[in-house]
């Protein structure tokens, strides 16, 4: 269980985290989603006591993280897989964690097995590791103390497709056994696949949160038309707002039956009409990223939503 209440962090005039509150529950994977620089990592660092919050409180298992007597046994943390002494071997990094936590030595080999690092790879220095290998080692370090809570910042970075699938299954099993998982990502799809709950953050503020099933269930309809301007006007006359998507698409904020009736009455030919599943969330996410993105990718991404 992770509880974050009204946490803010400012650096001079800049507000990195602005009044953020959310809860990650046991038995569920909570996805922390937001574009780069939205405040995800700062929030996670505040959670584990590496950064001080300007205001607000964050607790793990009902306690402030720094008050946990042996944090490694209660909370597994992976904030940056590359933040390791490059001159240590993978096995040595696990051994240091095992020593701090006071675990039996055998846990090191068990963890190497779990994350599929071979004896040969474990004997190499981390300087020679690929990012994917570092992520595996970081996940091993997080899991070695059999904690009840996992906090992972962008753990899928650098993993190959098979690695990503492996990690998804690992986290799913972990949550199904009653663990609490908080993982961040800047990729909507990645979070959509694994998370039960979603917390979406942009410019330091939470813009949406809740169960994934609720957030993805959209009231809207997605349609494509030969003349979408005509359709949009007809819908507006009937009191339905809509947003253009892609080249000929339109996201109408009403169910398909209602939209179908209005468009039929207006006599406007349609190419496609269907319920807009999840498009609302994707739109919201794109809106968030639009402010920080250097390229205008709205068209490109919206087509992804249609597909």
């Amino acid at each position, binding site marked *: 269980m992770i509880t974050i209440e009204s946490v803010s962090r400012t650096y001079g005039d800049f507000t990195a985290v602005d009044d953020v509150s959310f809860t990650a529950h046991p038995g569920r994977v909570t996805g922390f989603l937001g574009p780069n620089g939205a405040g995800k990592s700062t929030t996670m660092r505040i959670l584990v006591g590496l950064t001080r919050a300007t205001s607000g409180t964050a607790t793990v298992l*009902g306690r402030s993280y720094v008050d946990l007597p042996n944090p490694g046994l*209660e909370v597994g943390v992976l904030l940056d897989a590359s933040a390791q002494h490059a001159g240590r071997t993978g096995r040595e990094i696990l051994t240091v964690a095992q020593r701090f936590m006071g675990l039996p030595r055998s846990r090191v080999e068990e963890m190497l097995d779990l994350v599929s690092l071979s004896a040969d790879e474990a004997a190499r220095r981390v300087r020679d590791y690929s990012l994917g290998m570092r992520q595996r080692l970081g996940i091993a370090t997080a899991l070695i103390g059999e904690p009840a809570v996992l906090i992972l910042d962008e753990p899928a970075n650098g993993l190959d497709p098979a690695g990503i699938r492996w990690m998804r299954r690992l986290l799913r099993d972990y949550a199904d056994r009653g663990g609490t998982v908080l993982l961040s990502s800047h990729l909507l799809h990645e979070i959509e696949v694994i998370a039960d709950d979603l917390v979406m953050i942009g410019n330091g503020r939470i813009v949406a949160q809740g169960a994934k099933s609720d957030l993805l269930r959209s009231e809207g309809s997605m349609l494509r038309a030969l003349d979408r301007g005509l359709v949009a006007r007809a819908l507006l006359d009937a009191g339905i707002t809509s947003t253009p998507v892609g080249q000929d698409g339109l996201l109408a904020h009403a169910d398909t039956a209602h939209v179908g009736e209005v468009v039929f009455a207006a006599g406007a030919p349609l190419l496609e009409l269907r319920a807009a599943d999840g498009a609302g969330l994707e739109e919201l996410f794109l809106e968030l990223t639009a402010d920080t993105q250097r390229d205008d990718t709205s068209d490109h991404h919206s087509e992804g939503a249609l597909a």
Partner: protein
Amino acid sequence: MTTLDAFPAPIPMSRIIATELRKMFDTRSGFWLVASLGILALLATAAVIAFSSNDGMTYSAFVTATGYPMTILLPIIAILSVTSEWSQRSGLTTFTLVPHRERVITAKAFVCVGVATATISLAFVVGALGNLVGTAMLGIAPVWDLTVTNMLTLILANVLALLVGFMLGVVIRSSAGALVGYFVYSFVLPTLFVVLATSQDWFRDLQPWVDFKYAGGTLIDGTVTIQQWEYLGVTSVIWVVIPLAIGLRFVMRAEVK
């Protein structure tokens, strides 16, 4: 898995110290730094045997020769044990596994002082062996010219030198920066003080109270008077205690990234 009402026992300080000791040796650079202490001790002993005159071959000559490289290297070991947490960013893991940073820093200080004491003791042992072997080869009687007090002040001198490195590590928290700081501290500043003392009358009387190297030198030379202990106390406060206290405040509060 742990539950809400069953928190594990806190991490004992002894375990943090033991783990920090391990971390000092488990990297390639750490290993070779410590190994070089032993290697240099042997080389220095061999050099004294090879080049020293009959009169010059005394226990203190051996100890001085083996101890000198240690006095230079120990502060570097202390610096790296602190700064690597930031420069190598391993602090991200260390300070999440042990979120009370003062415990980690204290453990590092313990380990550094322990390693310093152990290596200087090694210098005494290697020096003694060198003295026995060297004099036997020349067929002269070995000269044992170090008292227990001499040995204790030598240990103190090295611990102080190491604490300077430790302090620089804590204050600067970057390997490169702290190493530069160390050379300024131990080579540039003392020279400046000597120049000032010889050219400026007003500084001449002040020098013993502010020149850490000057005050510490008496520990290596042998007899230390009450006055010299006072010099040493005052300069240690100025150059080690105060900056260390300021650095520790920053370490406790600073963001770990």
